[in-house]
């Protein structure tokens, strides 16, 4: 019996591994989540998401005053959260419109569909805020991240 034929080629057994960091994606464009103790589901991360992740990682190299107005460099936990969000959206088939670092070291992830926009901000203290816009009119703004609600509203 073939251990892994084409119908299950997206599944791999990773011996001696109990947890897999999402950062694995930076070494290999494949994202693993644990399906059982020995079986892992794989997800091919899109080239677009890989580009976005690379851009997010590049923000860690920013120095203080990077924007000429005293901007602080993002910390790793803000970038980590943003990367996880990008990967999660990519798994659902949604791309990122825009990313940017903020003046306090926060990270902006912007999603867009027509005239609807969602701005999600990850800060250095692991806080997440989101704001929903139609054009420039704010529909909702709050200190939470309900990914399902955001995507349902956006589409």
């Amino acid at each position, binding site marked *: 019996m073939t251990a892994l034929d084409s119908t299950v080629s997206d599944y791999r057994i990773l011996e001696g591994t109990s947890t897999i960091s999402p950062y694995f994606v930076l070494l290999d464009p494949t994202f693993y989540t644990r399906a059982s103790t020995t079986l892992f589901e794989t997800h091919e991360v899109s080239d677009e998401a890989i580009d976005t992740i690379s*851009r997010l990682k*590049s*923000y860690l190299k*920013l120095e203080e005053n*990077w*924007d*000429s*107005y*005293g*901007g*602080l460099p993002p910390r790793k936990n803000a970038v980590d959260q943003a990367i996880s969000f990008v990967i999660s959206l990519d798994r659902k088939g949604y791309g990122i*419109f*825009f990313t*940017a*670092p*903020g*003046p*306090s070291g926060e990270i*902006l992830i*912007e999603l867009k569909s027509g005239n609807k926009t969602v*701005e999600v*901000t990850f*800060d250095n203290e692991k806080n997440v*805020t989101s*704001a929903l*816009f139609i054009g*420039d009119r*704010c529909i909702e*703004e709050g200190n939470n991240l309900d990914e399902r609600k955001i995507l349902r509203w956006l589409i």
Partner: protein
Amino acid sequence: MEVITNSDGLLRRIIIHPSHIKPDNTISSFAFKPRKVDVDGLSVDLERLTTPEVAIVDRTKFRLARLQASVPLSLGLICIHTPKTDNPAHSLIRGNFTQSMCRQLASSAIFVI
């Protein structure tokens, strides 16, 4: 110290790398977001006391956007001239900035360089 009125222009540098300019060539709300630790406010230059060439500092790193003072004033923010020894045009937009306000400021600004 000058009084800033609705008719004044306020200039702010917009960074190119990393970019605060979105793929559709609009300005990100983050370009008009003050630092959390900034009790002072958002730094801008009062247009009538400088020139775009001076305010931009470095054309290879920034573009320059102009915001009509009436925009922040209409949002309930305060515009105050706070000259510095190395920048007589330095001014601040003060107040309680929400994400929505930052976006409105960004969308109302236009590039001058």
